[in-house]
């Protein structure tokens, strides 16, 4: 009983030695835990005169309260000390986690698919190894068309099909147009296809394999303003609201009228005239080919050209990356150099 008063001074002495919260916790248990000094002492109440028990209890509780207070003060002091600590280097790097990479083409594919799915276009896929019929004849490209010769198209050593012609590596995604018309049978058609194409060219702006992204829309009463609207939508989604697209007259066998799609230059912002820009031609960059589906193509697609019409366009994905992503040398995409690829 008399050592209860000593307890408080004992606690005070012990607390002075405590320098962290862990030790404080140990000390707290020693005095205030289930088997701590205070509880142990309290157990002894049974041995005491019933008449003195009340006084005994009050005393102990007073001591307990005092100890509690001491502990709390110490605890707050320690927490404060902790917060004031400065020898923690928060500039050290975090623990490393693996970081892989995807190919630039994969990201572009994902992005383009998402942009077009919002306006109801489904993504499809068609053969990369094709017959001349789908790549040329059905697209209104006659047998003597320069695009069909050895310098523009890869031919495979394989048997020629009497109806569909030689086996080739598809030189453009447009080979899917008539295939899609056959698949669907009756319009509407709202298709995009992103795929590998092949042509015998190999320099800084051409690789023998490249990617195109094709879109085809066939329905009743489709007109040029629809094509223009869709291209404008895509350009603003993909390149940004501040970019403008324009159509210029061009020539393709499988569209009539045909257009070239230009976009305002991201470097000189379309100022063009007078200002020499290292990137563009007079403020605009060529981006894609487009046009209204030629009636002969619809005929090959077994679609009534008097009832339906449509538009189609094809962008080179590498070209998109060059225009938007600052890609300089197309070959970097396909040499498989980890130092280039792991950045993405």
């Amino acid at each position: 009983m008399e050592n209860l008063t000593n307890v408080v001074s004992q606690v005070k002495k012990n607390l002075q030695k405590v320098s962290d919260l862990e030790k404080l916790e140990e000390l707290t248990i020693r005095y205030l835990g289930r088997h701590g000094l205070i509880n142990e002492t309290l157990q002894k109440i049974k041995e005491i005169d019933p008449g003195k028990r009340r006084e005994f209890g009050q005393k102990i509780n007073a001591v307990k309260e005092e100890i509690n207070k001491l502990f709390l003060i110490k605890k707050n002091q320690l927490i404060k000390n902790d917060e004031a600590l400065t020898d923690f280097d928060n500039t050290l790097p975090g623990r490393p986690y693996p970081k892989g990479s995807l190919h630039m083409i994969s990201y572009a594919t994902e992005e383009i698919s998402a942009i077009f799915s919002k306006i109801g276009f489904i993504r499809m896929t068609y053969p990369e190894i094709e017959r001349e019929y789908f790549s040329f004849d059905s697209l209104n490209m006659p047998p003597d068309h320069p695009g069909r010769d050895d310098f523009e198209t890869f031919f495979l050593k394989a048997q020629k099909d009497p109806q569909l012609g030689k086996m080739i590596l598809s030189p453009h995604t447009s080979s899917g147009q008539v295939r899609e018309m056959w698949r669907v049978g009756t319009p509407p058609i709202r298709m995009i296809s992103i795929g590998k194409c092949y042509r015998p060219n190999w320099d800084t702006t051409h690789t023998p394999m490249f990617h195109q992204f094709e879109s085809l829309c066939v329905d009743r009463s489709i007109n040029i303003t629809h094509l223009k609207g869709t291209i404008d939508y895509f350009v603003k989604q993909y390149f940004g609201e501040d970019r403008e697209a324009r159509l210029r007259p061009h020539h393709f066998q499988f569209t009539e009228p045909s257009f070239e799609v230009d976009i305002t230059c991201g470097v000189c912002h379309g100022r063009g005239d007078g200002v020499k820009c290292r990137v563009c031609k007079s403020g605009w960059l060529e981006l894609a080919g487009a046009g209204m589906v030629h009636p002969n193509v619809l005929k090959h697609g077994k679609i009534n050209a008097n009832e339906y019409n449509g538009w189609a366009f094809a962008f080179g994905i590498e070209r998109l990356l060059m225009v938007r992503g600052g890609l300089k040398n197309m070959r970097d995409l396909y040499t498989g150099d980890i130092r280039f690829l792991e950045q993405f």
Partner: protein
Amino acid sequence: MNIKITYNWLLEYLETDADPYELQKYLSLCGPSIERVQQIGVDYVLDIEVTTNRVETASVFGIAQEATAILPQFGKKAKLKINPLQKYTFSSMNTKPGEHMKLDITIADHNLCPRFTAIVYKDINIKPAPDLIKQRLQMCDIKSINNIVDISNYLMLSLGQPVHMFDYDKIIAHKMILRESKKGEKITTLDEKEIILPGGDIVIEDGSGRLIDLCGIMGGLNSAINNKTTTIVFFIQNYDKKRIRRTSMITGQRTVAATYFEKGLDPQRVETTFVYGIDLLNELSGGISASPLYDIYPHPYQIKEINVTLDFINRLIGVSIEQNKVKYILENLGFKVEIHHNEDYESFHIKVPSYRSGDVDIKEDIVEEVARVYGYHNLNNAIQPTIYVKQPRDIEMLFVIQQKIKYFLKHLGLNEMMNYSMISKELIDKLALDSDNKLVIDNSISEEIRYMRTSLIPSLIKNIKDNENKKDKLKFFEIAKIYEKKESLLPNEIYRLGLATNTDFFDLKGIIQALLNELNISEYQIIRWESKHYLPSTSVEWRLADIPAIRMGQIKKTYQEAMGIKSSLFVAEIEFSALIKNYQAIATFKPLSPYAIIKLDLNLKHNQKQTYDKIRKTAFATTPLLTNVELLDLYKGKITLRFYFSSSHKNLTEEEVKKELQKIQNKLQ
């Protein structure tokens, strides 16, 4: 193709208040694209892109014609000062042909040369051309040579029709036989290159077997004009465009003339150019005509006619353009237009000029002419009505799962590769692959890309090789098609996922297991698999729903060394279709068990007879209370495993579980 002309030259044909930059802006929007304008002295050079169907605009006059149609749409004045098509005709030519210096002309096949014109001029005085012509040609990147050669080039740029001149005296016997070449015939062209002909080229022979012209591409050196020339053959033709392109591409003689002829030229323009040329010769050469005028033109142009309604034009464009405006636009482009008033609609009866007959055939072509001059920039942007079109389920899954896999592997730290679909014979040989089962490109441009891939692994191995010194740990993947050759049909194009690492077997195995987990594919068997390329103890096949789906292993050292790769190589190839088929969007799951799980560890022998897989299988076969086995450690022929037990209907006691573990232990070593 691109051509250069000058602004002042253009003004000889065109009366306009548009400056060069306005011209650039407006023509580019509605017609030929003027890519650059460059001021040189008092003149401006216009660099113009011409599309293949509009080769007649690759000329000063052609641009002037376009300008007369386009500029008024922008409020600019534009009209032709002269129209050479009307001014220069044989009937208006004021030079009388001479008689005594004849040419003996034979054309073997008129398909080779639809129109052939020529005349002999004598007493020519070879000297420099006047400064104006010299300067204009030089500004347009054409070297000035002498008055005669410069006239040829000046004509070509003025009207879009290439012209050739021979030295008459160098044509022995004055014979010209225009025919197909035989394979292996030789000609030395003006640039002093000897060309061995592929055969089927259009050539002119002088009757002695000597070739004097590689038609449409370049003249022969043996009949070339030089300073001593006094008599020339002035010579303008049309040729079969297909043959010109073929010869030009095969022989590599990509001359300016060839880029014109290969697009197909207007036979009527031959006459215009000829008569204008005679004017220039009379003025600048000092010569006089000395032969009859030869014009061999068996099938003159028949006027092409097209009917189209106003409604059709407006529906396809998506605006309403007035009838008179349509007529005005077309007439400025050189079409002849009659309006027919029918009961309830208006239609146009249109005659196509000869120089447009190559590209204007159908109603849609007329729409294009109207729309472009009206201005695409004047049309609205209007996305077509959006409707629901169903994407085939299998295609949807293909893309959804591809995307999932790509990101998953990326987040595991793998790098995605995208290789060419073709591989080299060298790679095939180094890896002792079969070449017979691969499709071969007939006209490849490089040995690097000749065989169509039947597996993604060889390319990935090459990726490892190419990157070995760039980074220590290499983990690559690629998703692409392989091409399974079929006898006469198109190949099967099959999507695969290829993986390659230089780390270790269990790293790769872990990647595959993690991937299967991600796709919620939990049911598979792994069995041994015989392979020529994989180290036997590492060569395994994974079966999903009993179908072979994944093959993996370590590449044998012999192949690794053949490739010159230092570290060990671990590869796997996965059938994409198997992943799609077994994929589950949501994992099969069990409700939370209210009963406790008890874990006990066991140390066992680990060897070829008692593999991890055997222990696992034995353990599961022994007790139904086992729910999981976890590998904790491997050490000196011992394996430490943790066994998880629980019951679905009660709490197990430690005693019960120990009994179960004992049963397992009894069956094992």
